[in-house]
């Protein structure tokens, strides 16, 4: 019996512990001190408390970069290396931005619970990133999901919010059952729940493939790819906008990161092929077909949407499809491009949702008509929206373009003798062109169509600053993509 290294566990978990304390402080402060205060005071105070906790966690995370090497504790249930620290930082950053958006928006009457649940959700995501063991992955994923179900239903008065939560929950719970069933086969065949040991044991067992299939289906629900996407449009539309932003960014970053670990490390021996001249069973084939279906359906259905949150939901389905191209490449460059794209996508989408949340309250809704003539009413935020939407569409100098470029490059390079994955790349490029159309329709409402209401919209300075920072990050990712990619490449190589 080996002694448990409590001290190093404590060090590795400091960011999480800070967040737990922050969540408790937010909960109790709300009950003890703030019951009689106005909504604005409660919202701002508790938001600041949560942001302070997240900043503390961020400091603790940056200190982890100083560690001499990767740390593996408790039989891989806790792994700290530079890549996990980086992604934990990304998730903490996304959570901070979500909270900044929430401080202005309407989050219902239970403010303390709102911020506490948000922090617990981000704890789940942090743990999801820093583990290489199936049980912990399952538990952390459930923690995240349960927090997101609750957050979706936070507009207690609004029917749409409750309804979105029920739909999200039903699909989420079924997907969890699929995931658990798949993981039980994986455990049963390999005899271990440790991702690295699974890789060492991979035998070509058909039952293991069934397990892999169920696991991928489970994750397919979580990242919303066709045909497991049905919950996404309703959940995005009905949930409070900051929560929709969190579902679309934070949870996807964490889920994609786990999927990278699971597929590229755990099931490295079972990728099969998805080349146009040769399909053989394995997870690349599975991901190639669902990814292609997502790109087509997401982009085509998005064209008909009038509600911008719904449009962003379909566009995120399409983006999950693009990300799968990087998975299908099944190379180290593929994994790197996936991680790069996920970061760019999360920042851009969060920015877009942030602008939407800031403006929707004052514009009276989140349908396209409400945003007509917005460029004159809120010129600054409209410029930011322009940047985010052009990045989502993949226009060259912005981050989104290089994200897609690397995904497609990885797919082409992975099989460069006969260009077996070219079909997927061509589909991706064609669908990007389609997506440009609906992104431009939204921008047309912002910039060209005149609205009835011409009054100026004032938004608080801190919100503008935060969203501007996101926009700057998106532009910088577009200006210096090589450096970021090289950094990620180095970190992925250590994995």
């Amino acid at each position: 019996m080996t002694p448990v290294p409590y001290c190093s566990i404590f060090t590795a978990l400091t960011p999480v512990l800070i967040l737990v304390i922050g969540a408790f402080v937010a909960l109790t402060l709300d009950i003890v001190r703030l019951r009689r205060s106005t909504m604005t005071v409660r919202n701002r105070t508790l938001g600041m408390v949560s942001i302070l906790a997240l900043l503390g966690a961020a400091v603790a995370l940056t200190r982890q970069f100083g560690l001499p090497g990767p740390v593996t504790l408790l039989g891989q249930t806790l792994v700290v290396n530079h890549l996990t620290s980086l992604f934990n930082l990304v998730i903490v950053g996304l959570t901070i931005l979500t909270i900044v958006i929430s401080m202005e928006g309407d989050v219902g009457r239970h403010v303390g619970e709102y911020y506490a649940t948000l922090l617990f959700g981000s704890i789940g995501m942090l743990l999801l990133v820093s583990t290489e063991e199936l049980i912990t992955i399952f538990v952390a994923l459930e923690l995240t999901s349960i927090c997101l179900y609750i957050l979706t239903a936070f507009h207690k008065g609004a029917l749409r919010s409750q309804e979105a939560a029920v739909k999200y929950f039903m699909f989420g719970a079924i997907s969890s059952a699929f995931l658990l069933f798949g993981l039980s086969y994986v455990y049963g065949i390999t005899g271990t729940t440790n991702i690295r040991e699974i890789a060492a044991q991979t035998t070509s067992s058909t039952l293991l493939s069934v397990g892999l299939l169920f696991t991928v289906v489970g994750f397919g629900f979580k990242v919303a790819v066709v045909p497991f996407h049905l919950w996404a449009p309703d959940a995005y539309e009905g949930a409070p906008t900051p929560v929709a932003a969190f579902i679309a960014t934070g949870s996807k970053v964490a889920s994609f990161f786990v999927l990278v670990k699971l597929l590229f490390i755990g099931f490295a021996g079972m990728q099969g092929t998805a080349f146009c001249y040769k399909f053989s069973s394995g997870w690349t084939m599975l991901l190639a077909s669902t990814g292609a279906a997502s790109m087509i359906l997401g982009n085509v259905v998005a064209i008909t949407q009038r509600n911008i949150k719904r449009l962003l939901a379909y566009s995120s389905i399409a983006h999950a499809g693009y990300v799968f191209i990087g998975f299908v490449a099944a190379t180290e460059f593929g994994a790197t491009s996936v991680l790069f794209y996920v970061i760019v996508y999360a920042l851009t989408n969060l920015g877009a949702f942030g602008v939407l949340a800031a403006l929707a309250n004052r514009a009276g809704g989140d349908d396209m008509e409400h945003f007509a003539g917005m460029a004159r009413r809120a010129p600054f935020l409209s410029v930011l929206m322009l940047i985010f939407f052009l990045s989502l569409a993949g226009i060259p100098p912005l981050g989104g373009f290089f994200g897609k470029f690397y995904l497609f490059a990885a797919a082409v390079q992975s099989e460069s003798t006969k260009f077996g994955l070219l079909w997927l790349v061509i589909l991706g490029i064609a669908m990007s062109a389609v997506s440009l159309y609906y992104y431009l329709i939204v921008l047309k409402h912002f910039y060209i169509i005149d609205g009835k209401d011409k009054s100026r919209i004032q938004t608080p300075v801190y919100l503008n600053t935060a969203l501007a920072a996101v926009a700057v990050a998106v532009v910088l990712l577009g200006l210096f993509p090589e450096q970021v990619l090289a950094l990620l490449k180095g970190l992925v190589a250590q994995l």
Partner: protein
Amino acid sequence: MTIPLGHYLILAGIIFAIGLAGALTRKNAIIVLIAIELMFNAAILNLIAFWHYKQFAALTGQMFAIFAISIAAAESAIGLALVIAIYRHYKSVDVDDIKSLKG
């Protein structure tokens, strides 16, 4: 004993299929939740059967089962709370009645 592992796996597979069928076809939200519990239980049976038959050195299978049971319980509690919240609005738990979101 002569019952092979395959029997348990097939049993778990059938229960999972029954649960899935219930979750997809039934309109009563509470029955859907019950069907999801069936699916979780099938996975737990798998875990225990594998653990027993393959005599894995560690108790991982049982651990996984314990975590799965506690999470399934928490999840059904959340699901029922959501059903109650929906019932307040609609006076119904029929999934077909819940359709104000469309597109």
